[in-house]
């Protein structure tokens, strides 16, 4: 399993395409069916998927754990969202916390974790 993170527009998808050859079979967390992720080669916008799971009263942590168990070769792309001020609104706060926890689970299970800044990917776990 691979995990690619970094801020919005930091070059994550491009990195996945150029370095891991992932161009097709990418589920978009913004709109894909939840179970699509369990068989996809890659999922993008996982932080949005987390938001959608919460909105439908599904536990994102349990979902992420089952994703790791059922699709251990997937590449997960997720924005780093934890920097900045703690949101005033409760739902935003819970979402951000859930993203943090899910990200830790995904990074923990991944053989390689890439973090991007200015389009530059650094392996912060494992080796490229």
């Amino acid at each position, binding site marked *: 399993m691979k995990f690619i993170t970094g801020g919005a*527009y930091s070059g994550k998808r491009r990195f996945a395409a150029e370095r891991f050859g992932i161009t097709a079979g990418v589920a978009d967390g913004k709109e894909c069916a939840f179970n699509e992720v369990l068989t996809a080669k890659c999922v993008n916008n996982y932080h949005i998927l987390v938001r959608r799971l919460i909105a439908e009263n599904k536990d994102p942590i349990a979902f992420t754990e089952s994703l790791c168990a059922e699709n251990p070769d997937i590449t997960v792309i997720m924005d780093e969202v934890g920097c900045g001020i703690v949101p005033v609104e409760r739902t935003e706060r819970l979402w951000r916390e859930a993203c943090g926890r899910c990200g830790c689970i995904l990074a923990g299970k991944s053989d390689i974790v890439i973090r991007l800044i200015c389009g530059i990917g650094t392996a912060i776990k494992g080796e490229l």
Partner: protein
Amino acid sequence: MITLITGGSKCGKSSLAEKILDGFFGKKYYIATMRPYGRESLEAIERHRNMRSGKGFETIEKYTGLDEIVIPENSAVLLECMGNLCANEMFGDKIVNPVKKIIDSIRYLDSISETLVIVTNETGADGIEYAPETMAYISHMNEINCITADFAENVIECVYGIPVVRKGALCY
């Protein structure tokens, strides 16, 4: 030679940029892109002026169109900062995509200077979905950062004053 310095707000990017040029013995130019508007920007400008005083920089205040700048050969340029420049180029009479214009002006400044240090900003890692024009700004800023980092020799991320080399090397 381009050195791109990035990082979050108030993480020591300017100090690092000035430190990099400390050992430069030629003419040093500081391109200030922040429009003096409102108390907070005036305070920031004052703070940066004090930081730079005695370090031999000549200040060029230029808020847009950096390709109009003319400096003597073999000079060093410190451009601060991309966040203001991008906003200035983007939000004029109408909202425009400033990426090409800014990249062209960076390449121009690189071509006329001995060494170019650019201070930029990390935007887009707070998870907040802003209004569309703000999201466009974040997108343009990151695109500019990605393209610049691609042709820059050195890319340094500042983390609470600690420089982390992302590409090339940190040379004082």
